[in-house]
Structures are given as C-alpha cells and as structure tokens.
C-alpha cells in the first residue's frame, strides 16, 4: 500500500513565526488531505488537495502530485495552531480509506 512520511516530527515555534510542514508519499495519489488534531484530540479537516494550491486564512497547502509531495504552510502562527498535523492519502479507486502519516507535532509558544 501507499506510504506517507511527514517531516519534521516535532516543531516548536515562537508566536508570529511562519512554518512549512512536508508530506512525501510513495505512490501516485488521487486524494491528499491535511488534518489538524488539536490538544483536545479533535481531528479537523484542513484541506482536500490532490494537486495544486489552496489557501484558507493563514494556512495554505500545495501538492505537487508528479513529485509526490505536499506542503502545508502556516503563517503568523498562533498558540491555537498547536497540535498535531497529519497528512493522509489514498491511491486507489473504490476504497476511500486514508493512510495517515505519523504527524508533525507543532507547539507554538507565546
């Protein structure tokens, strides 16, 4: 099956700083999603981005499917951005089961 790798595993930022999280995947995908798990455990869907670039407020994501990677940009980070960011993908038709990366744990300090 598809492999999803995320980097870095941990990231500490000062409030107001920018950051880039990376997701590499082993095979062609037709579904790439980013999720945020907040400190209370809730998983929130940030982006569905099989290719191209999307922006939502201070967050944006870019997927280059031909090179098998996706990037999540966080600008002007806030303490509420803390948590774990997951990249997830599936490669096949028929099943929409997601394979998750191990996540990037982000801590934003005031």
């Amino acid at each position, binding site marked *: 099956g598809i492999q999803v790798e995320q980097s870095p595993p941990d990231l500490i930022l000062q409030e107001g700083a920018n950051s880039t999280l990376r997701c590499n995947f082993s095979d062609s995908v037709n*579904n790439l999603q980013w999720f945020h798990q907040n400190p209370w455990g809730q998983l929130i869907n940030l982006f569905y981005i099989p290719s191209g670039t999307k922006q939502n407020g201070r967050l944006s994501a870019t997927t280059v499917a031909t090179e098998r990677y996706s990037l999540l940009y966080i600008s002007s980070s806030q303490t509420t951005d803390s948590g774990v960011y997951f990249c997830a993908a*599936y490669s096949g038709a028929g099943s*929409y*089961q997601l394979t998750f990366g191990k*996540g990037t744990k982000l801590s934003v300090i005031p």
Partner: protein
Amino acid sequence: DTAVSQTPKYLVTQMGNDKSIKCEQNLGHDTMYWYKQDSKKFLKIMFSYNNKELIINETVPNRFSPKSPDKAHLNLHINSLELGDSAVYFCASSRQQLGYTFGSGTRLTVV
C-alpha cells in the same frame, strides 16, 4: 448540528468483556469508517463501509466487528477485550473522498 457523533467518549472496562461504541452521522455521507489511534498518535484504518461494501483492514483481529443498521450509523463491537485494545477509536464519514469528517473519539481503556 451537522456532525459525526460517537458515544461513549470514555470507556473503561475489564479484560475479557464485550463492548460497543456507537457512531452516527447526519451529513448525508455515503461512507463511514473506524480508525484506531494508538498511544503514539498513529492513526490506522480499521474498516470502511458503505451500503454496498465492507472493507476490513487485514490487520484487524476478528474480535472487532462493525455493525451498520442503516447508512447513517456504523457501530463498533469488540469481543473479549485485551489490554492492547486500549486506544482512541475515531469514527469518520465522507461522501466518496470529499468532506472527510471525524467524530470526537472514544478513549477505550482496558484494565
């Protein structure tokens, strides 16, 4: 509120017991899922189900069984609970690959 809701939020039980976790979605989605998140935060698919097909991850023990009374519900039944089953279990739903929405999780502790 439109959402994926699962109950209970916390479940503490003894080894060997049988337990169920309920999940309901009112989003009109056609596919529902169960994921397991271990102590290292790793999320892994257990099942996916729509009204046509159940897909079971081959690593899931047969003590775990999904039960779907209708397309808005996918409950998880676990027989003969073991210590290693302790984890957070998430229900999710989607309309094909879109709108993936997770429930708030059920923290299962087996003692």
